[in-house]
């Protein structure tokens, strides 16, 4: 029997009043906090009689240290940072400015270079950064500005009263495997906030609660996702220049899967590389970690890495759906920013600048609310107007139909993409619809046993220990640690479905799509098909893929005890 995490019922919790609570200390949350501090400082210096306090503005961050759960490629489009901190380049941790880029289409053995780099992938003027170091630096700015960051505290529940978001409950600490308080038990706090800003990143767990509670996905396209599996390598000097950018499409994926890779040259012979697999593939045995390992075996990639050493690993999902999937982003007592809202440009593979911009716009809204002491839905709704009137909307509008165009494979996708390019994003229809990625999974019975040209990325990767790695070895390099004696934070609402239905219908795709070996089917005597679900919850790298991709929608990712998770130093 697996016991799942949920806030302990019927206990008295410490209450704390707050003006603004920002859930999540990534680029969106930090930009939001910093912009809010700037606006308040500016106001206070001009209005000695009507001072606004920054004391009750808090950022909750589930990682033990700021930035440790942040993972991205990453390239930074500096547009929003220049608005937030003009001249930030002088002090921010930047690896290199992009100096060279190339796009390739890969077949199993060959590479075909695109004669010109497609305009959306032209990256001159962007910066190669480590999102981990960048966010750490932003976090320092936020703390210097006088805003408190609670690291090691996750938002576990929204407090909703009279159809209004009234605050956030933080995680219960010191709860054992059976959900019983231990000697070091500390109940989660009820942070009663005038406004809660959800900056949880991709597939936010509170955002999911909010969307479900208020049907925010009504009349929207379902959000679609990809999962990026990343490794950081140290390679012999001169192999890839700092600021050199390579994108590949094609192999190891077939024409029927969506996805592609990046290779970014950073400082000191460090190379960031990774593969994003669209979470809308057909074959439930597809293993995105295996896809990444297979891709590294392509002669072109293998030659780049030869003689190098893998030093870090990580994985994270990202929202692809674009403008039509963005839910309402403000309401009574709440706003949503960054990846939680789906502000990501899937054509340019960039979201950090939009996360920052949306955080700033939410900060401007929160500031106006504080000035007028009005946190109503109408007042906070002006955040939506700010988004509409900003370049954020303009950028996303142009690519509103991009990802949907690839629904029926690569070739059709390229056709739609080209058409959209010349029709200002429209393409064939005003609004391309889509369906959620997990609904595209085919039942095992309908798939040929030989893998249908995909055998090289189905099931577990073996790894040679040099160029390729098995999942556990890679996972070890993510530095993931959790308190072991706690309930499972991967909440499966009905494990019978895993052991009876899924095992025959889809072959338990959780074992494959999870890049951290959390889900395992182990032999057991007392179940009909001889296998039962087993969770290695403490392996979890917080990528949220399971919450997205499970075919029965029975997995809910909730935050584990704060402080646990990957350690993405330098990622």
């Amino acid at each position, binding site marked *: 029997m697996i016991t799942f995490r949920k806030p302990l019922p019927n206990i008295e919790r410490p209450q704390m009043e707050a003006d603004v609570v920002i859930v999540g200390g990534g680029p969106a949350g930090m930009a939001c906090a910093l912009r809010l501090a700037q606006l308040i400082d500016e106001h206070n210096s001009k209005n000695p009689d009507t001072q606004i306090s920054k004391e009750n503005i808090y950022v909750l961050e589930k990682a033990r240290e700021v930035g440790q759960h942040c993972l991205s490629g990453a390239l930074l489009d500096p547009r929003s940072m220049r608005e937030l901190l003009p001249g930030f380049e002088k002090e921010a941790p930047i690896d290199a400015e992009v100096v060279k880029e190339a796009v390739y289409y890969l077949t199993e053995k060959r590479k075909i270079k695109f004669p010109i780099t497609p305009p959306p992938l032209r990256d001159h003027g962007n910066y190669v950064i480590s999102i981990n170091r960048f966010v750490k630096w932003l976090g320092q700015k936020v703390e210097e500005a006088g805003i*408190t960051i609670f690291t090691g505290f996750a938002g576990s529940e929204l407090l909703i009263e009279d159809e209004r978001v009234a605050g956030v409950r933080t995680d219960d600490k010191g709860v054992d495997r059976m959900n019983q308080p231990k000697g070091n038990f500390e109940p989660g706090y009820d942070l009663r906030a005038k406004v809660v800003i959800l900056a949880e990143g991709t597939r936010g767990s509170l955002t999911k609660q909010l969307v479900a509670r208020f049907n925010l996905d009504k009349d929207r396209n379902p959000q679609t996702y990809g999962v990026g599996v990343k490794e950081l390598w140290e390679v012999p000097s001169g192999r890839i220049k700092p600021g050199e950018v390579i994108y590949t499409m094609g192999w190891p994926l077939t024409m029927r899967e969506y996805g592609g890779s990046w290779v970014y040259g950073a400082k000191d012979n460090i190379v960031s590389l990774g593969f994003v697999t669209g979470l809308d593939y057909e074959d439930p045995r597809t293993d995105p970690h295996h896809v990444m390992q297979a891709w590294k075996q392509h002669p072109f990639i293998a030659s780049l890495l030869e003689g190098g050493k893998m030093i870090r690993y990580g994985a994270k999902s990202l929202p692809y759906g674009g403008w039509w999937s963005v839910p309402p982003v403000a309401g009574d007592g709440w706003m949503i920013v960054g990846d939680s809202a789906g502000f990501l440009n899937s054509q340019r593979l960039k979201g950090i600048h939009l996360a920052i911009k949306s955080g700033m716009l939410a900060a401007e809204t929160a500031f106006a609310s504080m000035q007028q002491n009005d946190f109503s839905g109408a007042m906070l709704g002006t955040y939506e107007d700010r988004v509409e009137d900003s370049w954020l909307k303009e950028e996303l509008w142009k690519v509103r139909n991009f990802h949907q165009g690839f629904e029926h494979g690569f070739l059709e996708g390229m056709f739609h993409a080209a058409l959209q390019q010349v029709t200002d994003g429209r393409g064939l229809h005003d609004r391309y619809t889509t369906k959620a990625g997990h609904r595209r999974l085919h039942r095992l019975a309908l798939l040929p046993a030989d893998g249908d040209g995909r055998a090289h990325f189905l099931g577990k990767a073996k790894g040679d220990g040099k160029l390729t790695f098995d999942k*556990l070895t890679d996972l*070890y390099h993510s530095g993931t640690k959790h308190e*072991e004696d706690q309930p499972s934070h991967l909440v499966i609402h009905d494990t019978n479905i895993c052991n009876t239905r899924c095992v025959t219908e889809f072959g338990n795709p959780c074992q494959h799509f999870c890049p951290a070996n959390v889900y395992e089917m*182990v032999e057991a005597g007392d179940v009909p098909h001889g296998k039962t679900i087993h969770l*290695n919850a*403490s392996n979890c790298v917080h990528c949220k893929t399971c919450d997205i991709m499970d075919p029965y929608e029975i997995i809910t990712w909730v935050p584990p005890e704060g402080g646990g998770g990957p350690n993405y130093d330098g990622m």
Partner: protein
Amino acid sequence: MADTILVVVEQREGKFNRVSLETIAGAQQIAAATGWTVEAAVLGNGVSEIANEVASRKLAKVYDIESPQLGRYTPDAFVHALKQFITDRQPKLVLMPHTYQVRDFAPKLTTALNRTLVSDCTGFKYEGGRLLFTRQMFQGKFAADVSFGGDAPYFATFQAGSFRGDQAEAGISAAQVETVNIDVPENVIRTRVEEPFKEAKAAVDLSQAEIIVAVGRGIKEQKNLDMAKQLADALGGEIAASRPICDSGWLPMERQVGSSGQTVAPKLYLALGISGAIQHIVGMKGARTIIAINKDSEAPIFEISDYAVVGNLFDVVPPLIEEVRKAKG
């Protein structure tokens, strides 16, 4: 007894808990700020010696609260005695060290008196006639000043280290000790206390073991652990396991070897049905000799083992046990 601070000092098994001196120091500082007086009380059966020791500090009075039922600590007896004493004397403020014993009975005591308790305080402030207690929040990131609503007596406990015990002021002369006999009826005590005992220290210290027999998922079922234990016994070694085994609760966590368990370096490490994921290897690669038995010839454990046995452990281990027993005579 208006405007008095009562410090309840702690004794266990007739031994004075010196952390109580920190609470006395704190009480003296509060008294200096407020002008209140400080008294102390100790509960037990024949603890006048402790009362006398406490009386050497600068205190207005020390109460030696005696009852045969207070000899062995029970929350029921302590609460009964203290409730009666506090109701009689009506101190304004009751202070205690935030010890395990106090944590055990203080909530019950204050609830019984219909009062509030501010627990685990790290300091106090006295501002404009209001006494505030400081508590840590968000794991020490924040401090909150808390004041009492409602009526006295007020209750607070101090975290260890909040004040310095050696700064508890000594009195010019010993404080008067008053013995208070309180009748604690037998029937209020709902727990029966057995002889105190010390739990044997963690039964096993794997890092000291010279021989370790470790099992992995290849052992299949919990009942097969017996076989591995027999081998460990025959060799005079300890049994250990990789994570899946401890995760399933087949062996206690303290026997888990690897990145989320123990790191060991025995003379001999026998790995039975362990594939050798890096998470396990980092915990045992320092072993002098590694013998691995696994049916998968490509199991990574073989890369670091000195002796590799490719085979079913259920075929290999039983004869091995026999041979070891024979060899050892």
